[in-house]
């Protein structure tokens, strides 16, 4: 096996008293996509900034494309492309001028830079806007230009910090297609995202970070399987303690009450559901709803990042839990 394209071990970074990263390790095989998933402030951008030589880690070390990010930053820089969370294009230059400048900084030469710039503008559907100043670009156009800029020197490893945040559904789908095309061409991609479906669709491996720690990692399937049993949920018309207790005993030892519903693992799926419905009827319990629930990546996410009494991190809408 070849060495991983990205390999980070025990990265830590603090800003004053804020511990942005406590202990983050990850490996990304060459030619694969890894999604870094986490809530706001989890430490995704900090991780990306360390791996892209923008920020020094306080502890731990990392290698990208075979080179150490602190000791061999220049070598790393010639091999990576970076699209940060915030726009990095010069507003007073046209799209073409921006790309050409970056090509020259990558030492492609004037003519070659112009050629690459034109090709990328074409690829990202920006040819019509090539001669417009970036300050007149829409958000989606800026995002695409930023991505184009990070591809100008055909990087081995591409870092994308929230590449689809702020894009409309069509642009998002186009961005996914672009990323898939790149990966098919052999590029390694590390992307961060707050969208679980994005991670699920794009990534070969997912690393879930929370408050500066890796709390789960694996393929989307592995993550789902890790808490992967189906659940049965019985919801009552109202939260009557006596009835809730009756249902809880009926559902077995692992049953949990929350609000007016009781849930428990359903190891045999539909069979369990049928049994439970039968028993409920026998005991004369009136129910509002009974159903079987399969874990989604959303639930994996909220399970691994759920801190009861966590004060300051609001759940994202996709990760919201009843």
């Amino acid at each position, binding site marked *: 096996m070849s060495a991983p394209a990205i390999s980070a071990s025990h990265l830590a970074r603090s800003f004053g008293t804020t511990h942005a990263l406590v202990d983050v390790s990850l490996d990304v095989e060459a030619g694969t996509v890894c999604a870094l998933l986490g809530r706001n402030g989890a430490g995704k951008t900090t991780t990306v900034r360390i791996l*892209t*030589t*923008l*920020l*020094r880690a306080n502890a731990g070390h990392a290698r990208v494309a075979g080179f150490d990010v602190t000791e061999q930053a*220049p070598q790393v*820089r*010639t091999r*990576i492309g*970076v699209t*940060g969370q*915030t*726009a*990095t*294009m*010069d507003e*007073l*230059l046209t799209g073409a*001028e921006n790309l050409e*400048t*970056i090509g*020259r*900084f*990558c*030492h492609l030469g004037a003519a070659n830079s112009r050629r690459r710039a034109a090709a990328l503008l074409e690829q990202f559907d920006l040819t019509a806007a090539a001669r417009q*100043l970036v300050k007149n670009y829409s958000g989606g156009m800026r995002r695409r230009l930023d991505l184009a*800029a990070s591809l100008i020197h055909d990087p081995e490893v591409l870092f994308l910090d929230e590449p689809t945040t702020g894009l409309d559904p069509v642009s998002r789908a186009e961005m996914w297609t672009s990323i898939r095309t790149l990966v098919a061409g052999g590029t390694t991609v590390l992307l961060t995202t707050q969208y679980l479906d994005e991670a699920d669709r794009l990534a070969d491996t997912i690393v879930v970070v929370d408050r500066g720690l890796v709390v789960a990692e694996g393929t989307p399937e592995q993550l789902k399987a890790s808490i992967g049993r189906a659940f049965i949920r019985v919801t009552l018309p109202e939260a009557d303690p006596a009835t809730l207790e009756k249902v809880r005993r009926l559902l077995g030892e692992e049953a949990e009450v929350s609000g007016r519903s009781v849930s428990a693992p359903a190891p045999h799926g539909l069979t369990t559901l049928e049994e439970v419905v039968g028993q409920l009827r026998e005991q004369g319990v009136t129910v509002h709803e009974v159903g079987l629930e399969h874990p989604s990546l959303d639930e994996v996410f909220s399970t691994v990042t759920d801190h009861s009494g966590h004060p300051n991190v609001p759940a994202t809408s996709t990760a919201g839990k009843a």
Partner: protein
Amino acid sequence: MSEMTVHTQGQLRNGLLDAYTATRRFLIRGTRQLDVVLGSVLIPVIFVVLFGYVFGSSIRIPGGNYRSYLMPGLFAMSILFSSNNVAVAVATDMSEGVVDRFRTLPIARSAIVIGRSLSSFVLGIPVLAVMILCGLAVGWRPEDGLGNAILALLLFELFGFAIGWLGVLVGLVAGGAQAADVIISIPTFLLGFISSVFVDPALMPAWLRVIAYWNPVSAVVTAGRQLFGNTIGPAPAGVWSLDHPIATTLGLALIIIVVVAPICVRLYSHSER
């Protein structure tokens, strides 16, 4: 050994290319900010009118003509004030995402700041040209031959290059465009006015007079007046910098460049790491 040489040669070549690319980028930016360019021309032009005619009519310089005395002062003043634009531009750059993009590219560490300083130098040339035209229009003339006039302009440009580096320095440490503006405006304003740019310091109160005589801007202006063969005004006794204004200007500019440029490169490559 020879491999090592090839390596450093390649590095030097890339470094020069990077500095060129950066300069080019800032020059393109400069041409898109015509309001800034216009502003840096307009203020000195207003000074020409204000001091040449409004206040100037009541200012007497012993042994000469006031406008001949004033114009070299205004050349220096316009150069001094141009540092403001550099500082604001650098501070703006540093607070925008563009810097992050540059830092992830394989660019020589010094390229961006060198590009910034070179481009501000180039953009300063038309401003000085406009000032010269203004001077000619109000009757100012170089009175000591073309050769010395060219030397005077070169000296002013060197001074401008050095001042540009101070602007870069302020832009790097200010932490914001507005802060940079304030930090650089106050000293340039004080240095510009408490000097021999507008009036003969001999007329100032004693304590102010000492500052005005030793103010390096006075030396720069005096060097210009000398080379242009313009009115210099009565020379004070025992002020070395005014007795040797050209040497002082040269020395000062070189010291600023040699000290400040490396500091800027270091500050730029170590910021936010």
